[in-house]
């Protein structure tokens, strides 16, 4: 069965500093990986995805993520954090050869301090 782990419930970073939100996955086949962001009282918004090709994926709002097959990870990164980046971030995986059901992680709360 496929699974996603977001090992940190909360990440704190100062504005202007780089940020990383971690995600690891487990699938039987090749993964399709996604990051979504959820602002208070709003639905999830798509940030970026990895399907195939370049391991470094660039997405919305200056975010990027690096796919690492050997470490089964897909960490979300941003070179310089903004206070407005404070939100709940979800990693999700779909297995190319397994279940079509998208599996989401528990979410990581990112807090950017001024």
């Amino acid at each position: 069965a496929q699974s996603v782990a977001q090992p940190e419930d909360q990440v704190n970073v100062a504005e202007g500093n780089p940020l990383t939100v971690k995600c690891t996955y487990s699938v039987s086949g090749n993964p399709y990986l996604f990051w979504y962001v959820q602002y208070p009282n709003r639905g999830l918004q798509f940030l970026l995805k990895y399907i195939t090709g370049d391991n470094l994926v660039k997405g919305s709002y200056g975010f990027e993520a690096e796919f690492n097959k050997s470490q089964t990870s897909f960490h979300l990164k941003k070179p310089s954090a903004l206070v407005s980046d404070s939100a709940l971030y979800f990693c999700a995986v779909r297995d190319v050869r397994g279940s079509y059901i998208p599996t989401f992680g528990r979410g990581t709360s990112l807090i950017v301090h001024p």
Partner: protein
Amino acid sequence: EAGVAQSPRYKIIEKRQSVAFWCNPISGHATLYWYQQILGQGPKLLIQFQNNGVVDDSQLPKDRFSAERLKGVDSTLKIQPAKLEDSAVYLCASSSLAGVFHEQYFGPGTRLTVT
């Protein structure tokens, strides 16, 4: 373009009562998803439609939950009868195609409280 619409935004009911949620996906999106998001957890897929057909409902508690998408556009999710553990945010999402690599667009959700 208009986003995914959901109503109501909030609902409070007593256990054993019935409740229904409505979703209108982005125009032209053939695939529609219903998720349950319990506080502190990630969204859990309940059911996926492709047009008006069910693609997957393996995680839908069919003894009390039902969903339909009769004309391949709007969808309703019903709970009858509700239990305390059904308290959650119910999210509707849509995507242009059913493929596993297509991103989903989410509505604002309906927060259900069962007392």
